[in-house]
Every structure is written in C-alpha cells, then in structure tokens.
C-alpha cells in the first residue's frame, strides 16, 4: 500500500516536472543583442578632440552619434522570425558606450543567423506614425516630406585654432543597408548570452572611402555625399570576436 503510494507520488512528480519542462521549452523567450561602440582601435569618448581626421589634418570630437537599427530577422531551424515593429534608435551616450536590445517573446528555436538594417524601410520612412523608436517629433526626423535621418553624427574638427562644425545627417531610402551575420554558434531564447556586436564609428569615414573631414565637413541632402557615407556605414558593424 505504502509502496504503491510512494510510487504514484514519484511518478506524479516526474510527470509534473516533465510537463513543466515541455511547457518551458515551448515558451517564447528573450534574445538580447548588445552593440559596443569604438572609434577605430580606441574607446568612444564624447566631446573630446582625441581622434585624427582620417583623410586630412586636424583632430575631431564627437558630440552626438546615433542611428536606426530596424527590421530585425532571426533565422532559425523552423524558419525566419521577423521581430514586429523593430525600430530601434541606437545611442551610446551612456557610461558603457553600448546599446542593448532585448527582443522579448522570441519563439523557441535554434537561430543561426540574424539580419537587420541600418536605417528604416521605405514604408516607415514615409510615415508619421510613432512605431518603436520612430518618432516624427524627434531629432532623427527631418520633416514629414523628407523622412528620417538614418544616422546622425555631430561634432567638430579642430585644426590649430580653427573649430569647424561637423554635421553628418544621412538618410534617404536608397541608403538603408541590410546586414547579415552568421552566428558562430546557434542561439536559443533565454538560454544564450547576448549577441555581441562592435560598432566602429570611425568606419563612417574609412569604411569604403576615406573621408577628409576638412573637405567634407557636412553631409545632409546631397545624394552623392549621402551615398558615400552610407557605403561606409554599411561596414561599421561586426560580430564581436569572443575571447
């Protein structure tokens, strides 16, 4: 009698445990993405003229640097998970000069690649609805007729006694860059560390074409200039090599 009781209790516990396990592994979870900013081989420090003009004379400082990450897709064994309303404004003016995205409710799967855009898609760029971090009343909005800045860099170039303002506002639909990263090992929601990316601010001026800030101190609405910088920022994000 007692044996029967303990056996049924044990099997009950086992069943409950199994049920909880099955329930848990079928539940969606969180995938985290972290972006750490650097300037070439140096850390990012704002408001300090410590970086050399890559294409010419003078030192530059960074007052503001931010850009949109959008349309995040996770590629898994069961298919592609498109993160809904994924419009994130990455900014690094914090003590760790990093930006983290927590993707909640990601379906249970093993994901081997991630794709996302620098910039926003044509539909969002032509809309005045507030979705995700898109806000038509923010500093990233030009105005409703032009759309959003995809990337904003503001600072100054200092050469002997001359201080020149640097203003790089890059937008336009053709300058959205979609990047794909094949992950070194597959990740599952909740069970893996954050996906680590490095954002190299300097690549904006060195990525494909080296920019002399004195010759090109601002980029706003000129299509060729914007395309030049977009070609560069298309190279600025990489997976962080794990030690």
């Amino acid at each position, binding site marked *: 009698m007692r044996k029967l009781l303990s056996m049924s209790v044990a099997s009950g516990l086992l069943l409950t445990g199994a049920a909880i396990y099955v329930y848990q592994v079928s539940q969606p979870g969180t995938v985290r993405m972290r972006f750490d900013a650097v300037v070439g081989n140096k850390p990012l420090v*704002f*408001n300090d003229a410590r970086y050399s003009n890559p294409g010419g004379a003078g030192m530059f400082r960074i*007052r503001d640097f931010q850009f949109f990450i959008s349309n995040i897709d996770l590629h898994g064994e069961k298919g592609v998970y498109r993160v809904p309303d994924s419009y994130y*404004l990455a*900014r690094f*003016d914090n003590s760790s000069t990093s930006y983290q995205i927590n993707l909640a409710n990601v379906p249970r799967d093993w994901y081997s690649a991630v794709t996302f855009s620098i910039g926003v898609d044509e539909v969002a760029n032509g809309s*005045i*609805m*507030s979705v995700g971090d898109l*806000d*038509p*009343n*923010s*500093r990233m*909005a*030009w*105005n*409703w*007729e032009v759309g959003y800045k995809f990337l904003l860099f*503001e*600072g*100054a170039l200092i050469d002997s006694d*001359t201080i*020149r*303002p*640097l*203003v790089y*506002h890059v937008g336009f639909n053709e300058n959205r860059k979609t990047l794909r990263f094949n992950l070194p090992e597959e990740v599952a929601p909740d069970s893996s560390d954050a996906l680590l990316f490095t954002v190299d601010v300097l690549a904006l001026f060195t990525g494909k074409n080296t920019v002399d800030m*004195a010759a090109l*101190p*601002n980029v*706003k*609405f*000129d299509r060729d*200039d914007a395309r030049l910088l977009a070609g560069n920022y298309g190279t600025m994000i990489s997976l962080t090599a794990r030690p």
Partner: protein
Amino acid sequence: MESGGFGSINKSIAMLSLCGVMLIAIIYGFVAYIEPKPTPLQGFTAPFVFGKFRVPVDNPLTQEAVQLGRRLFYDKQLSGDNTVSCSTCHLQHLAFTDGKARSVGVSGKTLDFNSMSLANLMWGPRHFFWNGRVDSLEEQALAPIQDPNEMAQNLDDLIDELEADDVYPGLFRSAYGKISAENIARALATFERTLISADSKYDQYLRGELKLSAEEELGRKLFMAHPDVKVSLRGGNCIDCHSQFLTSGFNAQFDGFSNNGLDTEALLNPGLQFTTGQVTDRGKFKVPTLRNIALTAPYMHDGRFTTLEQVLDHYNEGIRVSDSLSPLIMEADNQPQDAVNIRISLNLNEEEKRAVIAFLHTLTDHSFITEDKFSNPFDADTMPDA
C-alpha cells in the same frame, strides 16, 4: 444525539462565517467610504501627431483632480502672504506666460528667468525648468510654491490653511483622500496636463481644413529645413531644435536642451550643467514650445528679446560662439561658407525672415487662450475673498 451535535457545530460554524463575512463587508464598506472613487476624465483627446504620452500611474487624469488643480492654480492662498498664485506668472490670455522679461514673485525681486508657457506639457522634454532640474510636473509644482522669491510658502502652513478652508477638504477628499503636499502637487500637475493647445491655424492646416497663405507656406518650409547650399535648399534651421508638430524640444533624454548662441563663453550661464554636472552642458537651456509664440514675448530664458524680429535677427546674424554651441547652428548657412574665415550667419533675406515670423503667427491658438476649462474658477464664484 450525534447528528444533533454535529448539527449544532455546523450551526456555530455557519454563524461564525456569517459574522466573518459581515465584518469583512463592514471593513470593505468603510475602506470604500474613505477611499475616494474619482471619475476618469471624459473626452480627453490630443492630436495623434503629438505622439504617445504618459500619465503617471499614481496620478491618473480624473475630473475631481482637474477641478481641484485648477482651483489651486488660481488660488493666492498658495503663496506665503496670499498675494500671488501660479496664475500670476502664468496668465491664460498670454498662453500662460506673464509678459515680463523675467518674473517677479512675492519678494518683489526680479527672478533670473522668463516665465514659461504651459501648453502640451505631456510631450517634449520630460525635464522641467529652463535647466531641466526636475523630471515630473508633480515635482515641478512644489518648487515655486516654496521658493522664497516666488511664492514663499511653507508647505505645512499651506496644508493648515487648506484644511481650514470651506471648500478644499471636500475637493481633496473626492480627488485623492487627504490634504498633503504630495496631493497638492498631483492636482496641479493634473490640471497642467489638460492644457492642450491643438487648434491653431497650423493645426487646422495639418488637419487639411485650410491652406496657409503664400508667405506662411514659405515660412513653414523654411522652419522645416536645415539649409544645404549644395542642393540649393534654403532653410531657417528651426526644426533642428523645435520638432515639426509639437514645435517643442525633443523628448528623448536631454535632446531637448540646446545652446543657441546667446552668449560668449565668458558670460555663459550654467543651464543644463546645473542638472547633469557635465561641463559640456554649460549654456544649454530647455528648448520651449513655439506654440502661441506670438503671445509669449519677451523671448529666451532671460527674456532678452522683446520681439520675434529680434529673435530672427539673433538666429540670422547674432550668434555668439562658445564651446557647447550647437554645431547645427554653427554650420547652418544659406550661402557657401568660407572654409577659413567662418562667419556664423544663416543669411536669410528680409522676405524670408518675415515669412518665418508669419508662420510663427500660425501657431497662435485663440481657443486655447479663451477656453473656459482653463480659466480662473474664482471669477465665476461668489467667493467673498476672491
């Protein structure tokens, strides 16, 4: 016998449970009596182009809170000598400014700053005062009341005064419960949140109800553009700090604070540096809403400009350089810049300056400055001391 015994036990259990239920009901009824049940504010709307807004969970918009807040806002009892109310420096017909370069409170001393317009306060920077030193309207509300130069009121004394009043104990009871400094702040903040200006000519234009005149439309285009000589785009540069629909500073973090070139390095006021402790924030001030700007002269944090023409002249050719000056102001020019001798000027012509001012006049909202719900409730009362 046995069954009878059980029966009596059952009866006493039943009796006990009944007593228990009654006790709970009485306690519940008592709590329900002392806990106010204010009515959620009806018909509260704002244009979707203003974007999302947040009301603190512990201070929802209710009719009772608005009524109480409005009364407090206009009540001179809030100052130490009962001569000054919030409305002394925030007059409805001037879009809740006072027409002075710098405000004057009970001490008679001229304050350091210009009275700020109170409109659409749930959007734009979530930091209040010109230097952004508080993060909520609730926190903001208690500061001028206690400031010795503004309203010079001790909060405990104020609570005593309000408790002795004929009207306030009832108003507080139905809105929040008891009279406390916290609830005074909550009520004032709630009233301020209802001050929405969304029926200017610009709003009507945005809703497709009318067309702007040719001059206003030119001004609007200039307002909404950062100039770029490379593509022959002329711009007034306003939108670099004043968002397109709200016309206020930006709401993310401290993006809504800027150094707009009023002073040289030596004369720069700390501004936002007071709040953040960052030397790079020296000379940055809150970018105010431009709604009703034609009514809210004088201009700037210290009221140094008396007309919009002076303001345009400042942005066009009066910029003073300092280290934290916005690079967007430094760089903006409607003529090609000399790479060596940088002379900061927007280089708008007279016609363009007039057009920007014409557009700024489309931000005047007459229904906002005449709305009964925002007006002095004592005017309609038969208050003996009002």
